[in-house]
């Protein structure tokens, strides 16, 4: 293979690595002020995003360990987009932070790990990528250096990740024991209904469920989300969840294809449980971050329903929804992070009468929440509709009814925030916030994304055309 092809295939990973090294060199050089660094980083990340869109190629390197195709590149582009938006949104918080470069080093190494995980063609590579993405995150969760809650969050994250990694490894070893291979494509032909393989599947699936915080493996989520800095929380709830879901989709549809009768019911059961528990807990939250944490648990439930569909509709609707989820969740987190960085307030009750002082931010948050709730004309409506449409394909109408009615519950808590902002009165509303330029760009991209991704069908059609059908 030509060296050049090698570079092209690995271009997104190499780009991230290059940025990491550049940042290290900047760190070695003379002291610079945060604004310059942040400007540079954001430009780098934009270039990184742009590079992903050029020259699509398919191929496998490292003897099949690393595979890539148009769909994988697209998935990585989604993650690149998300991290660019997160980086711009955390401008207000990082401007005064002492360890800016270290923060980016951790975040980008984690992203690099995710890229390898998504591209893996082998369980070993997958596990390597997963660990590489998790460990830096635990350090990043500790990045509100003065806050005790932040270190608590880091500890909880690392312990729960270690536990789920253990489950994954256990499952992987069983799979290796029964099939004699770690390569995905060879494994698929070997997997049948043997009890040991079913057991291995359950373990593997539990490991995944931990990472995407599906019920009953969700307990770490709320505490970690609340304690970690908002930037890390949004990274955890969007980027890291999306990456694991991407892998889960391809693993379920390819490797465990012969077990689809089994996992169909499991996925549906877990999905409904996740939606219901996430919803019921979200109703009672008063902290914005905890509230978004539980609402994101409920969203994962909807994603799992999409996975239960057939491969093409299922894959397409899940990836499409995650793209929308990037825009809508990051718009919500963007507003929350601004308010928390500038005014230090994080409770829903603080948001009362928010509209009187910050009408623009209130509208952005409203649009984001409507998109999360699935109200047209926002993209969230299309995302949810197609997920449930995919999930209904095999005729599970009663579970879909439960899921659809749960959307009403989720509607209640999203509207609660809208009600606080628009209808309630407050003696001391959050004061007028001057939005930094970067945050403005980020929020603007999110809002445009929320509107365009849904109404303009070519995005869905494109994803659909990429999704494999068997």
């Amino acid at each position: 293979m030509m060296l050049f092809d090698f570079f092209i295939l690995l271009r997104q990973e190499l780009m991230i690595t290059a940025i990491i090294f550049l940042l290290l060199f900047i760190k070695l050089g003379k002291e610079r002020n945060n604004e310059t660094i942040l400007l540079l980083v954001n430009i780098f990340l934009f270039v990184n995003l742009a590079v992903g869109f050029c020259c699509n190629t398919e191929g496998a390197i490292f003897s099949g360990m690393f595979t890539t195709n148009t769909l994988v590149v697209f998935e990585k582009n989604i993650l690149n987009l998300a991290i660019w938006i997160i980086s711009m949104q955390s401008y207000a918080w990082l401007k005064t932070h002492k360890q800016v470069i270290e923060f980016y080093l951790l975040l980008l190494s984690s992203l690099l790990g995710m890229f390898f995980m998504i591209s893996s063609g082998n369980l070993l590579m997958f596990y390597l990528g997963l660990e590489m993405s998790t460990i830096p995150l635990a350090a990043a969760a500790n990045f509100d250096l003065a806050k005790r809650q932040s270190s608590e969050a880091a500890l909880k994250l690392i312990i729960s990740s270690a536990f789920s990694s253990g489950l994954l490894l256990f499952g992987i070893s069983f799979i290796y024991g029964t099939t004699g291979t770690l390569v995905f494509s060879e494994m698929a032909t070997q997997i049948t209904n043997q009890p040991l393989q079913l057991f291995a599947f359950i373990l593997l699936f539990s490991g995944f469920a931990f990472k995407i915080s599906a019920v009953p493996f969700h307990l770490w989520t709320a505490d970690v989300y609340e304690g970690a800095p908002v930037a890390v929380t949004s990274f955890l709830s969007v980027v890291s969840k999306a990456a694991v879901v991407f892998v889960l989709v391809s693993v379920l549809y390819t490797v465990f294809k012969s077990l689809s009768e089994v996992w169909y019911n499991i996925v549906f059961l877990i999905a409904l449980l996740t939606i219901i528990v996430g919803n019921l807990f979200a109703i009672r939250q008063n902290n914005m971050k905890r509230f978004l944490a539980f609402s994101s648990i409920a969203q994962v439930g909807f994603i799992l329903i999409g996975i239960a569909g057939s491969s093409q509709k299922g894959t397409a609707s899940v990836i499409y929804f995650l793209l929308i989820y990037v825009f809508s969740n990051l718009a919500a987190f963007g507003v929350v992070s601004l308010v928390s960085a500038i005014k230090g307030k994080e409770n829903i009750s603080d948001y009362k009468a928010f509209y009187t002082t910050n009408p623009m931010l209130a509208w952005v948050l409203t649009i984001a929440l409507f998109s999360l709730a699935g109200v047209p004309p926002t993209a969230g409506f299309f995302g949810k509709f197609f997920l449930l449409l995919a999930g209904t394909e095999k005729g599970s109408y009663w579970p879909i009814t439960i899921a659809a009615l749960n959307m009403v519950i989720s509607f209640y808590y999203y509207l609660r925030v809208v009600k606080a902002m628009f209808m309630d009165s407050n003696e001391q509303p959050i004061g007028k916030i001057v939005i930094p330029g970067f945050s403005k760009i980020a929020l603007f991209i999110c809002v445009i994304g929320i509107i365009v991704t849904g109404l303009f069908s070519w995005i869905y059609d494109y994803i659909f055309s990429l999704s494999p059908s068997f």
Partner: protein
Amino acid sequence: MNLSLLIILPFITAMGILLSTGLKQVRIVALAGSFVQLGAAIFLLIQYWQERSAGNHSPMLFDVTYVWFAALHINYHIGVDGISIAMILLTASVVVAGILVSWDMEKLHKEFFFLLILLSLGAYGFFISLDLFTLFFFLEIAVIPKFLLIGIWGSGKKEYSAMKLALMLMAGTALIFVGLMGVYYAAHSFDIMEISQMHLPIEVQKFFFPFAFLGFGIFAALFPFHTWVPDGHASAPTAASMFLAGISMKLGGYGCLRVATFLMPDAAHAYSWIIILLATIAIIYGAFATMMQTDLKYINAYSSISHCGFVILGIGMLTQTSINGAVIQMVSHGLMTALFFAAIGMIYSRTHTRMVAQLGGLLKVMPFISTLFVIAGLCSLGLPGFSGFVAEMTVFMGSWQNPDTLYRIATILACASIVVTAVYILRATGKTIMGPISNTYSHLTDATWNEKLAAGILVAGIVLIGVAPFLINQLIVPGTENIMLQIGKAITIK
């Protein structure tokens, strides 16, 4: 005529409102936009008549299809028949009237008019959709503005009412969604006209009809899912009450007819006795509940439950005449309640009370508004010459054509409810506008020009239908014949 105009016009108006500043600019833009919409609706009516008299007998006119989500066979398919045109005209008149009565909206005026126009966009889109996805999309667009309109500009326990309304209507859309899924996977299409040609399997119809019908029924205040109606209407600001009663509840009736009954006629037959039962309960319960109310808005809201019961009754009876009656009742009730709420709003803005017991003798100081009140009341109790009589009479005649004993009993009970209606309407009217006037009200002024214009448009509609019912009949009969054709197929298959 390009039907997409009915979506583009409100959209442009809404954008214009966002760009303008100050109450004066905003309301001028909103009014101009709504008048253009009304003009477009009337133009559509004229074109429709020209097409029909030129001998065009296709079930849907002006239909256009654009591929939207090709992978899932979702199209943006729009088209109209007489029923949709009647609904569009109703929507357009209520929008103009609603904007005129909110002429002096001080608080957050820009947002207020923006949401009103957004709501009308959803309604227009819903009435012209011939694709279930598009229809569902527009239906949900019409829900959210209501939540904000009631919650921000309402009165009384507005947050509670807004939340209750939004959640109940969303539950309705959730049920509709399941119904749509069932139809989609049975027919592999979202296209209403295509599905109607297919004749879905009986089991599919029987399973999914209740979802679709109940879902739309929640919008149309079907008993026992009517509880959002009184609170929602009573807490809403005047224009939002008019929109709710005049437009939103019609979304439900139209959906019951166009989606549930038209696409699943066999199931409509099988379940018609349940529909009739619920409708009769709604009619009688609504009428008696109204008797106990002391607040003018609650009186009108509960009577809406009763009147919307006639719509459901007409649909459930499944005869040509009764369905005609149901459609006329939708239009008539929309105009009449909008007028009623407008009159109540005018009284409230002057006297600052809606309690019947505190009012009295208003005829002396505000003759115009009192006359509107009387017209709306008389239309509501079905006086000949107004639209209410035509609508209810048609429903009763159509219902009587159904020879089954149970259906006969239901018809008689529904007829009897008119007496109760007369009692509460006459009592409220008498106490409010007749009798001695208290000193606090003696200096009040009569309607302003905008209120007169708003009322004029609504009254014109009511009287036109009442005096010349053949006009609306001619308009809707081709549409209802088409629906009857579907129902007829179902009977012969049985």
